[in-house]
């Protein structure tokens, strides 16, 4: 019985002490996190530092490994003290909508255009000044003028070099439904990028055109995967010949495993084919975060040559600011991609796309 009493005492003790310890722990880590820039929490303008004390809280749906190295440079260039919270893009978008007017976030960095479009529709983003919008092609920003793309990715076909001759590569996604490609095509119907591509297909070729293509693809025994990573693995292993993916996934795998170890290469569909759609990651300033000035400086920095080149090199995505070109040599020039003529703002009908995918039984 005495043992039990000690256990209970230990638990009761832990109940009281550990939260305190955790509090200390979290204080430590937030101090570490801001790496010498003073208190990291979003304490508004309270702790006016030497730099003028402008602070900014960013919600980032893009990966910490990617964004974090840029933050120091951003702080240096703008004099703004920055705190970043990382989570998935969809989670952040949902949280921003729940926070509404009470949000502590000044800026939202999104992995895709869809989340920015949804926030824009909900009236939670602030309109950007003309000179910022002017620096990015109309196709790569929101039509309400409240978000801009900061980097672009292309849809591509990844193929296994041992199984497919370069000369036999399809000229269009419509070739993939031919008998020749029966059972040889991988796609990821639940992946957001594939769904955006289907939305573009609906916009470009109508509901019936999109449905026909999806049904023909299915009838041609194309194999559904859960994500781009799985497709890359399967094509690389020779389990399947080709797959529809985003261009940068391949470069990420190259960075992890080395190009020599891969049996795969990328193919860009020519002639404005829907299969080479350009999608973007972008940023928007929150309407109620009360940090507009600092956020605007950050947006300007993210569109600066320095930041644009950083994204281009780190992620192999394409720079979107006017006048900046990707330094990655193996990447085809951005303007050489014969992207379809479609405005990203028109790609806000993801629900209809999902309904279509459900109708044909893909998701």
């Amino acid at each position, binding site marked *: 019985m005495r043992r039990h009493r000690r256990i209970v005492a230990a638990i009761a003790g832990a109940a009281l002490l550990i939260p305190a310890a955790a509090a200390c722990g979290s204080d430590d880590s937030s101090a570490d996190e801001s790496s010498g820039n003073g208190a990291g929490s979003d304490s508004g303008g309270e702790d006016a530092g030497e730099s003028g004390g402008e602070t900014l809280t960013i919600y980032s749906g893009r990966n910490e490994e990617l964004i974090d190295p840029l933050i120091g440079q951003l702080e240096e260039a703008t004099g703004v003290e920055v705190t970043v919270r990382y989570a998935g893009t969809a989670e952040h978008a949902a949280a921003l909508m*729940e926070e509404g007017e009470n949000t502590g976030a000044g800026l939202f960095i999104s992995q895709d255009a869809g989340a920015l479009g949804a926030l824009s529709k909900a009236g939670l983003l602030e309109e950007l000044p003309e000179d910022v919008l002017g620096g990015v092609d109309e196709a790569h920003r929101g039509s309400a003028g409240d978000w801009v793309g900061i980097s672009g990715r292309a849809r591509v076909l990844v193929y296994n070099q041992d199984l497919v001759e370069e000369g036999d590569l399809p000229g269009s996604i419509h070739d993939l439904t031919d008998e020749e490609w029966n059972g040889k095509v991988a796609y990821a119907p639940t992946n957001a990028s594939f769904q955006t591509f289907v939305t573009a297909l609906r916009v470009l070729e109508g509901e019936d055109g999109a449905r026909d293509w999806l049904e023909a693809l299915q009838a041609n025994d194309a194999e559904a995967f859960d994500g781009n990573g799985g497709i890359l693995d399967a094509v690389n292993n020779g389990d399947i010949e080709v797959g529809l993916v985003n261009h940068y996934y391949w470069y990420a795998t190259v960075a992890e495993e080395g190009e020599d170890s891969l049996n795969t290469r990328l193919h860009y569909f020519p002639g404005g084919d829907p299969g080479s759609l350009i999608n973007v990651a972008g940023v928007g300033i929150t309407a109620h975060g009360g940090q507009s000035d600092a956020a605007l400086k950050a947006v300007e920095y993210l569109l600066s040559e320095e930041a644009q080149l950083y994204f281009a090199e780190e992620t192999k995505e394409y720079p979107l600011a006017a006048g900046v070109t990707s330094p990655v040599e193996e990447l085809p020039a951005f303007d050489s991609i014969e992207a379809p003529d479609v405005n990203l703002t028109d790609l806000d009908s993801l629900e209809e796309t999902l309904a279509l995918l459900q109708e044909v039984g893909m998701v």
Partner: protein
Amino acid sequence: MNPPGRPSPQPPAPPEADAPADTGAGGTGDGPARGPAGAPHAPAGRRGSHRPARRRVPLILLVPATVTALFALLPLVYLVIRALERGPAFAWDVVAADRTAGLLSNSLRLTVVVVAATWVLGISLAWLTERTALPAPRLWAVLATLPLAVPSYVMSFSWLSAFPGVRGFAGAAIALSLACFPYVYLPVAAVLRGMDPAQEEAARSLGHGPWRTFRTVTLPQLRPAAAGGGLLVALYVMSDFGAVSLMRYDTFTRAIHTSYRASFDRTPAAALGCVLVLITVLLVVAERRTRGRARYARAGRGTARPPLRLPLGPWARAAATGWAGLVALAAVAFPVGTLCYWIAVGNSATWQPAALLETAWATVGVAAAGAALTVLLALPVAVIAARYRGGLARVLEQASFAGHALPGITVALAFVFLAVRYANPLYQEWPLLVIAYAALFLPLAVTAIRAAVLQAPESLEEAARSLGRGPLRTLREVTVPLAAPGIAAGAALTFVVIMKELPATLLLRPTGMETLATRLWTHTDNFAFAAAAPYALTLVLIAAVPSYLLGRHRS
């Protein structure tokens, strides 16, 4: 959590009956159970004609239990507000869509299969480690607990990378069964460990064979533990997203996630979440029915002897070891091997012991705080659920379970919604995160503690009351010490599960705080599997400590 060096936290085991326990007390029964000292199997308990009138729940339990119940219902407030945001007609359209029924049946099919599989795995391993001369039982006991620490994402990923063909229903069923069977193993092993062998011996002496004894005497006593574990498994399967998403099996939870991911729309997600709550309540009611009025505390006077272990012949020994080994291989060695493989082949492998240690420490701190709060909140509800009958006790217990089948993201958004409006200073601070953990995992602690209280003889509490102790003193000096192993088990279980929690941690953590799960997510999200692996391995390693302590207690 028990700091190292403390007496071991113990699973729901019966008291080491220092005092004579002279009745088969301790059922879910309301009455002070002064039944004849009879065999405490179910039929005896169902008679109930001798039951005295219902007792009132003392305020000292009722008030904190009500607080817990209201607290657990907080996410549902949000859910209803969001679901009805565009009017009941819209919500009804979402729920009544053709697709919903199909998804629901997919979810339920998966749930049934996984619960059945975890019963087979959990009960067989518990019996082998507790009741047979299996070599190295402690080792197998730890290995049978460790899958709790393996995120279902990692479990599914390792199966998929080895057997790409297991996608769909089979893959999801395998991954979830392997990830969840400890929920059954732990309570069943605890009951086996604490069971008085006298009844089994009586059955044997009356001519029952070992199998018939197991079936007619042992198994009925395992029923509440297995049903409670099965309920937790069912709710886990209903709420899981990681495994079904990787395995591409379309369930109800996937539809909820699609609603967030695709349309960034919370209203359909909330409407579907309400359906999950309804199913949860039905499952809890069903589980309560199976528990019945049976009583499971030991009968007879004197101290219970430790149960005898069934000697195993060479063949039986090999078969038993082979089975335990196979399960450990599939559920622990396989995912751990996958993690080691990531480190071996990836270029992103880095060795940053300082960062790892700091993250591990932060994780342990917040998980321990979460476990402590969860146990404190669970205790009054669990005692009431075990000791009192009637509508009030039932409602309190059901309320604490109601949100458990909701996906983590929904509960996280509920706390974002509530905190931003009504407790802004707490928002994105650690107390709120700890509170969210408690809301998410309350049922784990309630189940463990309730099982322990059920096994403690109620007559001791009555003795204390008759000697003039008030309800609070009885609780403090009798009930809690008797249930201490179960309390410790509930804390350990909650601790391990909190460590791997991701969605609520991401949204509610203090800015800059990292846990092992968030680091794992950051790196796998970035395809840097080799950099991710050490965090997942540390998760399993830390979880091994409470797992080890859980199995240490021997009667």
